[in-house]
Structures are given as C-alpha cells and as structure tokens.
C-alpha cells in the first residue's frame, strides 16, 4: 500500500475543526490595478489575470481607475437587487427545509456577480447562466412569484414540472434555460455570440460557470471556439472556492488563476474581486465594450466565496470549517456595498433595515400568491398530459399513443 508518493494530491488549507486560512488568495489593494484601453493586445494586459481588480477598499471607499462612478441612486438600486436575491434565497431555503419544495440552491455571498453583471450588460445581450445566477433572472424581469412557481412545479411553473427547482428560463429576459449539466452552456454562449457577429448585430453573449466546472471539456471547447473566431462573448468563472466538497485547487486553481486559462489562446483574462459590485460592474463593462467593438472574448474570474451549502442536499460542515466565510478576506458583497453607501452619506442602518423588512414582506406576499397556483401536496395540479408536449415541435405518433394510454391508465382503465 502506497501511503506516500510523488503524486501531488491537492488539499485545502482548512478542513472542519481547522482555523480557516485564506493565505493562498493573492490580493491586490483596491485601486492598484491599472485599467488599460479596450484596444490593448492580450499580451500587453496579462497582468489583469494575475492581479485583482478592486474598487472598494477596506474602509468602503471607491478607489482607482476601475471606479465606475455610478450615481448614488444606481448604487441603491443595485443594493436593493442584491438584498432581494438574498431575501428570496433565505425564504426558499426555509421553504425547502419545511418540505414544501423538493430542492433548492442559494447564491448567498455571490449576489454581486449576477446583479453587477446584469447591470453592465444590455437588454439585448444574451445570458447563459449557471444554477447560482438567480439574481440575473430577477434583475432581468422574472417575477418572484414566477421563480417560486417554478420551484413548486405548480400550474404556473414556466417549466411545466419538467425541471428541478432553480432551473429557470426567460426568453423575454434573454436568459437561457439552465441545464443542470455543468459548463454545457459555455459553448452555447460562444455559438450565440458567433451568430450575433455573423448577423452583423452588436449584441454580445455572457456565460457563467463555477471554478470546479472549468475542468469540463465544454469549458475548453468554448474558449477555443471563442478565441479562434473572436466571438463577442464574456466567459465568467465564478470562483467561489468550493465545488461541493472539492476546493478550487482540485480544478487546478492552485497553480495559476482561472482568469489565466485563456491566455494561451490569446483570450485576455481579468481577475476581479467578486464581492465588490463596483469592480465587477466596471470590469464587465470594459470587457463588453471590447467585445462589442470586435475585440473578441474576455475571461473574467470573479473571486468570491460560496457562503452557503452547495444545495439543500449538501452539508458543508462535513468538509470545510463552519466559520470559514467569516475569515474570507473579501467579505460579504451586500455588507460592503451597504457600508460604501453609508460612508458616502447616501444610506443608513435604518434605511437598510427598513428595506430588508420590505423585501422580506415582498417575498412573503409572492410566496402566498405562488401557493395559489398549487403546492406539492395541494392543487391545482399540472396536467400530466403536458409531459408529452415540446419533446418535438409536433407530437409524433408514438408519443401521441403513449399520451392516450397514460390517460386511460389514469382514468382507471
């Protein structure tokens, strides 16, 4: 039995019972990373993939060339969207724990990613999200009640009971359908962007995967095609440090930043403080402008922390320190934007508390309404006949005959 070999097995810095240790995270002070022109050649801006673009400093002040100078109203709106995402997540988590939905995945600690990037993109740009981008759906107009009905698989479920909770879609909001398979949406985003360029439109595409999913072949396919054809696409890696129980080193994050994954293909990478709404907004806008003007793809790594469990089926206390998030050097994105607004004199603890209570009420009102369309135990229920629809554009004979047979069985024949 070999107990020691030259084979390196990546190991996180802390497991349960250990003191959290984020010394491995390379940080740059807020405002210290240059902002190059969007016309820069990839080889001249490699520093963006190893530094960390930050705007908010430890005193919650905005600093440096990446400060997007958003006005206070915009910042308050951004804060509200992040808080709504969290209020929604908190409630849905409880609802799952009460057994009233089958499954849930929260985005706790990562809210700034969806909201900042949603704000930086245009309505005509197409989003190909992962399962932790619920903020994007909310920001792009999907109502709370519709998100909840999806999680309930009830009569108003946009997915007609075909998908696990959180696998939303919104054609109207230009947010793609969530697969559940990892990184499969990455090449879709590249293909969508290629089509946009082929058609001569200036819409761009954006997609999101986690640090763990960068190991999937589709991640590499997407980067290759995006680089070869200079597709106008933003490829985001949300590095939240954990892929269920495997830390980001298991996906290769210990050797080099995920933002550097595209450099060999000539794709610039930007490593961004993923808990700093201002930095994310600014970096996304930079990359989007570059893509829109023919500069091709950008790989954006958003350094953040998965504040909650992977899903309701997961117990992170089994594999990481319970208090690890408290030690995460980039903090909590909601708290940081809140403090920034307070420091600037445009927000207060009281207003924050009032808004939080209002959002909890909004979520509760939506939950009450959602249940009217059916719950897991009480009707109205979806018609099981709909199971046979949308497999093909038109129902073929074999499905039609199976549909009839199922109805006979359900009616007791």
């Amino acid at each position, binding site marked *: 039995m070999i107990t020691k070999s030259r084979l390196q097995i990546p190991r996180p810095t802390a497991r349960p019972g250990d003191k959290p240790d984020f010394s491995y995270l390379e940080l740059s002070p807020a405002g210290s990373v240059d902002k190059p022109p969007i016309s820069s050649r990839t080889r001249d801006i490699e520093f963006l993939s190893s530094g960390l673009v930050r705007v908010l400093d430890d005193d919650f002040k905005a600093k440096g060339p990446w400060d997007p100078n958003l006005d206070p109203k915009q910042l308050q709106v951004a804060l509200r969207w992040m808080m709504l995402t969290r209020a929604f997540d908190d409630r849905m988590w409880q609802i799952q724990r009460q057994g009233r939905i089958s499954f849930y995945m929260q985005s706790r600690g990562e809210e700034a990613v969806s909201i900042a990037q949603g704000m930086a993109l245009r309505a005509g740009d197409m989003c190909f999200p992962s399962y932790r981008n619920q903020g994007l759906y909310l920001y792009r107009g999907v109502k709370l009640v519709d998100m909840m009905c999806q999680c309930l698989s009830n009569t108003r479920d946009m997915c007609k009971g075909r998908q696990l909770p959180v696998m939303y879609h919104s054609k109207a909001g230009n947010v793609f359908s969530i697969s559940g398979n990892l990184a499969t949406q990455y090449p879709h985003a590249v293909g969508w962007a290629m089509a946009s360029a082929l058609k001569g439109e200036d819409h761009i595409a954006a997609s999101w995967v986690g640090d763990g999913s960068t190991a999937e072949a589709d991640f590499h396919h*997407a980067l290759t095609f995006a680089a070869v054809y200079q597709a106008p696409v933003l490829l985001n890696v949300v590095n939240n440090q954990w892929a269920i129980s495997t830390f980001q080193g298991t996906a290769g994050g210990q050797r080099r930043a995920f933002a550097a994954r595209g450099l060999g293909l000539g794709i610039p990478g930007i490593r961004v403080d993923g808990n700093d709404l201002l930095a994310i907004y600014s970096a996304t806008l930079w990359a989007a402008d570059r893509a829109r003007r023919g500069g091709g793809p950008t790989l954006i790594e958003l350094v953040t922390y998965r504040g909650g469990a992977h899903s309701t089926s997961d117990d992170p206390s089994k594999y990481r320190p319970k208090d690890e998030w408290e030690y995460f050097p980039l903090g909590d994105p909601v708290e940081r934007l809140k403090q920034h607004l307070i420091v600037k004199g445009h927000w207060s603890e009281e207003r924050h508390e009032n808004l939080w209570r209002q959002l909890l009420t909004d979520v509760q009102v939506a939950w009450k309404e959602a249940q009217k369309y059916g719950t897991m135990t009480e009707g109205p229920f979806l018609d099981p006949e709909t199971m046979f629809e949308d497999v*093909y554009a038109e129902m073929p004979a074999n499905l039609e005959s199976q549909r009839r047979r199922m109805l006979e069985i359900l009616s007791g024949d």
Partner: protein
Amino acid sequence: MAQMNMIEAIRSAHDVMMDKDPTVIVMGEDVGYFGGVFRCTDGLQRKFGEHRVIDAPIAEGGIIGTAIGMGVNGLRPVAEIQFADYIYPGFDQIVSELARLRYRSCGEFFSPVTIRTPCGGGIRGGQTHSQSPEGIFTHVSGIKVVMPSNPYDAKGLLISAIESDDPVVFFEPKRIYNGPFDGDPEKPGMSWSSHPKGDVPVGYYTVPLGSAEVALSGEELTIVTYGTLVHVAIAAAQETGVDCEVIDVRTMSPLDVKTLADSVKKTGRCMIAHEATRFGGYGAELAATLQKECFYHLEAPIGRIGGWDTPYPHAFEWQYFPGLRRLSAGIRRMMEAE
C-alpha cells in the same frame, strides 16, 4: 433531373438550402476550403463565403455545442461530424442539451441543428471509421434520426432535416456514397448512374421525415432495413429467389410503423437487418414493435441479422459485415421454418 451520386445529392441539398435560406450555415472539420473529406461540401465555401461555410477546430463537442448556440440565435446550422465514430465527444451536447432544450424550456428555446455524419462499414476503415451508432441516438427523446439509402432520398431527406425545427442526426452510409453495394465485396463496384434513385431533381424538393418506403415489392418475406443493407437485401432476394419485400426505414425515429407493419402482415415473415451490433440494438426495437403489431400474422419468429457483437474489425471485415451471404442464409432459414 440530373444523375447524382449520394455525395453530389448531399452537396446539392446544402446548395439549395443555402440559396433559399440565408440562416443556413455549415460548420465542421475540413468542410470549408477543402470541401470535406468525402467532398460533400465541395464548392460551398467558394459560393457562399467563409462566413457561412466554416472550418471548425477538431472538437466535436465544441462544434455541436456552438451550433446549438447559433441555432438559439436564429441560425439553422448544419454541422458535419467527419465520421460517426467521432461523434461521441459531442454526445452530451446532443443528448443533454440539443435533444432536451425545447422540452426543458417548454418551447421558449429550441435549436434546429442538423448533424450530418458518415457511418457504416465496408470501406476497410477498421474500428474507428466503420461504426453504426445510429441505435444509440434513436434511444434519445427529442431528436430525429435519419439514414438514407440512395441519392434521391439523401437530398430530399436532408432538405427536410435542415428545414425541421427539431434537431436531426443524419447518418450517411459512406459505403454507398459512390454507388450501391450488394454486399459482395468480390464483385466490381456499381455506379448510381444505372440506378433509378440516382436521378435527382436539381432544385428543391423534400422527402418527408418519418416515412418508410417499399424498396422492393414481394409477398413471401419482409426484410426491414436501412442504409447500405437496403441494397444487400434486394440482392439477397434475387439470389435466394424468395419473393421478398424490402422496406427502407429511412427515418429511424420517429418510425413509420404502419408501412412496416402493413408489409409484415402481408408476408407473415420478417427479417430485420442492420450493420450495427445486434445486442440491445435498433433491431430489437423493430422486432418488439412488429411482434406486437403483427403477432397473429406471423408464420415464423422475427429474425435479426446484424454485425457480430464485437468491435468492428479491420482484417476480418467481410466475416463481420452482414453481407449477401449472411442475409441469404438467414432468408433461406426463415423460409424453412414452417
């Protein structure tokens, strides 16, 4: 009308559809400047430009994945996978994404991708250039699976596939690209010019998806088959002197059960033949369906002839391939089983 082999017919289908619909684009390995390793896209890039006939990196998963995204954004991509043997890196994109996108988004998103891929043996291609994986794809809900057996059907079916809002995996039996093959490798090669289905309209026409065809009429025994083996089956009918009816399935999914069942009810005997390995194969689905539809008409158990359940061998190709000798022997055995 013009004389065309299957390659020319497939090229013509691309040409017609690219002229008719500016959203049709072609992508694949070597399809552009070079025109495809089998020449199926020859001349298309010169005519339609490199933005519509795109040479792709060697990444089948990437070709299919990006084609899906293009389809979502309003294009109608025709993706070539150079050999069906190389389609597996794109399997997840086909099964988990392309096939289910319409379903999981309740029709909000769909992607009308056609995946063309040469398949089958008889060309001394060994195990990496001879496989017949079509049955793997018929098991997937949400895609259509097609395999033509002649130039006329190849063009008409490919146009239908490109126009279909459903994704289609379009298998091209490469042994018969240049001429029909009766399953006897010792005989000189034949040409499509002497075959009625080598007469192909120059312009637009369709052969509908989901319809089988009677390739040879007969009364005593039905051979249900597709692709290259349609021609082997006709030759076997002639060699044995048994009055066989040969049904060309053409679209494997969705299946035209009626045409198959009508024939088997008439003849009372059914032999299913495909190049693919037999165990767990598409023939089992055909046999189960026809057994249920035709049970009281059957005079013998439904038979199946396929490739042996081994990987496709190189040196023993003609011992492996379900050619004329094996099909004829199977027909004779079935006729003796009174």
